């Protein structure tokens, strides 16, 4: 494997890891709110969260590109704050990936939280547990499957994205050149050998991760009942 491809692999792994961590932090309160609220805004928020599921990645990428350019307020503020642009940068890629993978983190968590119901949370409150305490000691451990699914899906989905990366990040080695972009490039230049290597690695990693997750899920399920 060539050096640029190794760098693309490392970049992709780092991107997916970062996005997964940030997504879990963002999606948890959002999913909790969605699972408890009776607000009229709930369907609107749910629709917005689910948008990346149906929107073509190029459309999402196009809008994000427009939003990120320094001519736009958001892009301009970012340049003022950090001195660099969001477009064609690793940071921009992280932000875009978070939006793109949001439903894959929110939905499993929301389902898990809804399954707990209000009963056990009321019981926790009646035993003197403050809301945070009840969340961390009752809701979170009972939703571990939801957290696992959310993390795996966010990670895998970020690794596999292509359209959004191409639109927002372009193809800058070491900055925005992810594995899927690299594979595309190899195929474009008829370099099937390199494309095979990278594809096989992604296939192997994806399968291994899923195998571990499902295996773990089964063992824990037997133990917890």
């Amino acid at each position, binding site marked *: 494997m060539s050096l640029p491809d190794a760098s693309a692999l490392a970049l992709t792994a780092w991107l997916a890891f970062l996005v997964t961590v940030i997504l879990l932090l963002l999606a948890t309160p959002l999913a909790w709110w969605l699972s408890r609220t009776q607000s009229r805004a709930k369907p609107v928020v749910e629709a917005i969260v689910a948008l990346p599921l149906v929107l073509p990645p190029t459309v999402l990428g196009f809008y994000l590109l427009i939003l990120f350019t320094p001519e736009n307020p958001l892009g301009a503020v970012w340049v003022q704050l950090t001195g660099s642009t969001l477009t064609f940068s690793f940071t921009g890629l992280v932000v875009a990936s978070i939006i793109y993978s949001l439903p894959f983190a929110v939905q499993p968590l929301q389902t898990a939280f809804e399954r707990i119901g209000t009963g*056990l949370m*009321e*019981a*926790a*409150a*009646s*035993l*003197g547990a403050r809301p945070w305490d009840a969340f961390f000691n*009752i809701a979170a*451990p009972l939703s571990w499957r939801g957290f696992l699914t959310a993390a795996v899906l966010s990670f895998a989905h970020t690794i596999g994205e292509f359209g959004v990366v191409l639109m927002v990040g372009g193809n800058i080695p070491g900055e925005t050149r992810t594995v899927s972009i690299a594979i595309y490039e190899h195929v474009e230049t008829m370099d099937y050998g390199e494309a095979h290597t990278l594809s096989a690695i992604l296939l192997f990693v994806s399968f291994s991760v899923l195998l571990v997750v499902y295996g773990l899920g089964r063992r824990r399920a037997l133990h917890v009942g």
Partner: protein
Amino acid sequence: MSDDQLALLATCAFPGFTLEVNEALPLEGCTAVFGPSGSGKSTLLRLIAGFQKPTTGHVYCAGTPWSDAGRRLHIPPDKREVGYLFQDGRLFPHLSVMGNLAFADTRSRATSGAITFDGVVSAFDLKPLLDRHPESLSGGERQRVALARTLLTRPRLLLLDEPLSALDRARKREILPYLEALPHRFGVPTIYVSHAVEEVVRLADRILILADGKTVAHGDVTETLNAFGYDVDAEAGTRPAVILEGRCVDPYCANGLAVISVGSARLSLPARPGLAAKYTVRMRIDARDVAISLTEPVGLSIRNVLPATIRALHPIPGQPFVDIELDSEGAPLFARITQDAVAELSLTPGQRVFALIKTASFD
């Protein structure tokens, strides 16, 4: 607002149902909240616990505001020092029995000398269950653990929401002694929601009867239930029954019977755990379990005989029975017998007779 009572002056409005209470419940002993399904019992309990905000009015506990709709004040349940036992126990499925108990124990802020972890574990016989997980427990064991867990919060007030309703008869009998021992052993004031009059009679000192979201009666259990006379049983409909109050003379004499004095008479009933000498015992006596004799009987299998005077005869329309209203040394009693028997014995008001009560009817 007195220091030792729970002052409730509140309404909770829902579509099609409104709970309206204006009561002061003393913070001692056991108060039963009694009424048919849908009468607002659970809503009242949730209002006291803080799971339900009053639409108008307030809830004060010992002078401290818990909810006050006028002042937009609401102390959340986790800050109320109230123990709540749910119908279904609601044990945490990912924690062992030990973990469930420890959850409550470590979060309790009050210090109560009467309630210790080891004390509660032994009082509820939980030692052999500590390592088990909730899903491996029977329904009765689950409620026992849940009750112990609730107590370990060292609550100022214990709220029990039909804790026996999800259990079968045998399991109920297994839990009742623990509930019965609560006030004597741990001294926590208790509000007990139930639609089963036997439980109320056995456990409560006072009763608050609800119907359609409103208080129908509130007072001493024996007096209040007897004043209702004919239709006291929410589930069984109209069935005359009375509550007799007695004092335990001997909690466990020979043959597994306990001796209870009622006025000048002595009754024996099956001994049960948790009973101790000098306890006041309430017995619910169904009119169908009472027979009448003109003379003091000898050579009869029925052990319990009370002298009584007939006060009135109530024929039951459409049925061959008559309910005889009796007075036994000031205590009311009903006997349901056939019209034929009334004619044969020529029973009339004012007549002195003996009421015979089957022993088994006490349980």
